[in-house]
């Protein structure tokens, strides 16, 4: 009897594992095809001078060339500046909006979530067209008209080194917070009401509740959004490509744009692959530092 039960259990376990593998097959196949294979390919190509009719192995030349390229380092600096200026503000704005939406009725919450999420589903190209219109350099441009009302001079928003980066940052600040807002809202709804009730009994103010209940409880969410935000920001490409093309004087050439140019403009796929892998290492390093210093007090 005992023997028979064991056999059934064993079969069941084996059977379950088989089903399990079947169910994750789709994800595995997609991961293998569209992530693992390209990464392995990029690694190999980074040691080659790539040509469709036959590539040549050139050792570490692409890495040496990349590391001695002043434009590569400038693009890294520009990307870091962009990240520092955009990610914390974007997190703060998302958090603030989520806090403002939280006390509303459910239908209003849903409406606001949809409104804030809308830019995430809109085409980036369409958004860029709108922003190009806003940043029109002539006096008839929307932003120029706006600053003209307070007597400020006409600005060449995207065409001047002093305002081009600011313009891209402004664009990042004012769009695409939908995902973060929804994640923050979900996390806020997960905080047990008893904490607020206890705080109310103690006479805590709104700001005290925010500081001692909300912020600590949202630490895992904030860390997640910070890490993914930094990763996304390091890979930013579209805004610079569509709005400034990296100019003026390479003031907005992000590393993602530089990699794109090397690959698809100059067909230097080997160099682009080497730069991509260096960027991946850099991102991994930054993420590790974030986890090490900010992840200490996070409890999941």
């Amino acid at each position, binding site marked *: 009897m005992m023997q028979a039960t064991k056999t059934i259990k064993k079969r069941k376990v084996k059977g379950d594992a088989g089903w399990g593998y079947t169910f994750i097959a789709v994800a595995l*196949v997609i991961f293998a095809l569209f992530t693992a294979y390209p990464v392995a390919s990029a690694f190999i190509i980074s040691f080659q001078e790539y*040509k469709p009719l036959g590539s040549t192995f050139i050792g570490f030349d692409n890495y040496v060339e990349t590391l001695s390229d002043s434009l590569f380092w400038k693009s890294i600096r520009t990307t870091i500046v962009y990240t520092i200026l955009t990610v914390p503000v974007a997190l703060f704005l998302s958090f603030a909006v989520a806090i403002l939406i939280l006390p509303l009725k459910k239908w209003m919450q849903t409406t606001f979530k949809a409104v804030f999420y809308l830019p995430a589903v809109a085409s980036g190209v369409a958004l860029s067209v709108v922003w190009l219109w806003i940043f029109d350099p002539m006096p008839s441009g929307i932003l120029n008209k706006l600053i003209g009302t307070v007597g400020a001079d006409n600005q*060449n928003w995207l065409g001047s080194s002093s305002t081009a980066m600011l313009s891209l940052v402004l664009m990042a600040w004012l769009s695409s917070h939908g995902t973060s807002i929804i994640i923050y809202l979900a996390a806020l709804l997960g905080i047990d009401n008893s904490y607020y009730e206890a705080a109310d009994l103690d006479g805590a103010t709104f700001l005290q509740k925010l500081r001692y209940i909300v912020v600590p409880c949202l630490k895992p969410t904030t860390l997640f959004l910070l890490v993914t935000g930094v990763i996304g920001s390091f890979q930013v490409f579209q805004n610079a490509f569509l709005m400034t093309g990296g100019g*003026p004087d390479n003031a907005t050439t992000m590393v993602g744009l530089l990699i794109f140019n090397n690959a698809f403009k100059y067909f230097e796929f080997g160099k682009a692959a080497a730069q991509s892998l260096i960027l991946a290492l850099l991102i991994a390093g930054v993420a590790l530092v974030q986890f090490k210093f900010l992840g200490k007090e996070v409890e999941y």
Partner: protein
Amino acid sequence: MKRNSRVLASVLALSLSVTTLAACSSNNNGNNSAPSGTSSAGTSEAKDTITALLPPVSPTYQDNFEQMAKDFNALYPNLTLKIEPASWEDMTQKLDTQVNAGSPPDIAFIGSEGISKYVQQGMVMDITDAATPEMIGDFDAAPLEYMKNGNGIYGFPAYMEAHALGGNKAFLEQAGIDYKDVQKNGWTYDQFREAIKKGVVKDGSKTSRYGFVFATAGVASKDYLNILVKNAGMPSPFTTDLKYAYTSNNYLEVLKDVRQLIDDGSMPKELSSVDAGKRWNMFLTGQTMITGKGLATFENSANKNNAKIEANDGSAVQGSIKAEYIVLPVPSFLGKDPVTTVAVDGYVTFRGKKEPTAEHKANVVKAAYYLASGKVAATTNNDLFVAHITKTGKEAAASMIVNRNPDNVAAVQVMLSHAAPARPDIPVELGAKAIKLEDEVIIPKLQALIAGEITPQAMYDAVKKAAISTFGEDGVVKE
């Protein structure tokens, strides 16, 4: 029930995986079949399919694809011309992706300046031995040269278009500019500078009309300086002895002039953000007297907008005024002879990873020639208002009516008479280095110069330093 659900879920999961793989697989098949000799037999009468990736070359070009394919098939019953349309925005990316996957179309419509990039990849097909003397003899010599690289011919040209300037006739007359004389005899930089000063109209402290606006942002970013320096003794980035030319002192002088026109107030200080669409809008709305770069088709575009304004059609450009488009040459600098920048676009022939068979190559050449000559070329070039460059195209166009200002036609002919010659002798590696230097140093620095952030001397020094680093001390012009 539970078992049924599991089976159903597994089938769905497997279907998804298979679909993903099948999608990749069918893609590959489609690409591989295209370029590399699909002749089913070794005879020239065997059935064959030629693929072509074509953008909207003219406003009505893509509407005629079906007819073009039918007519080609009627001419060569064993051949099928399979045309894949692409937008201008997608064209380069689509083609580059196919080229790098090793499976490009047989024919693609691109600018001749792109040929060297594909020669370097080894993916273009030299048609020297497949093009018949009759085909070669049909083309004007100058544009055909642009389709060459080294000793090879990599397709047939569709047109050779002069990069000019365009003026508003009424504004030119108001400013007292004898534009007909300029069309015939050209003008110097000093004459041009004075002329565009007269075109400026102020409304209080604000400028309501500029003398000259040239698109310098976006895809037009490399045009401005390229067009100007050709008229300053530098018809190509390389001298005939293959030294990089933009380290010449003449280059510095042109940079000073670029800045001077903005400092005069004849051009907007926001010029670095003015793209091709914006400056055309400024021309049609009367915000500039002269615009650049000017293409022949702009006359057509201005005429159409004028007709809409006359008919009170709401689709006319908002705020636009009637503007008669006048073709003007680019001024010459430092006493040098004028040299017209030309765009030669055409049907470039590609090969796949496999060596194409002689039969397939001959068939591709037939298709490229069919597209670049005769009725197809005549219709397209008339639509674009550009000159015909084949004998068969000219014959076919003789019976077609084009509503063009004869003064403009004559002005273009004058400009084409001193068109910048093709430089198939420039090695592809050298050309590729020059393009990279232009993209990474010249254009960014020019944007900064136009925005008033650096001086002409600073830009010149940066270009010279980068050029020496790229081509070596002995690889650049020193004067």
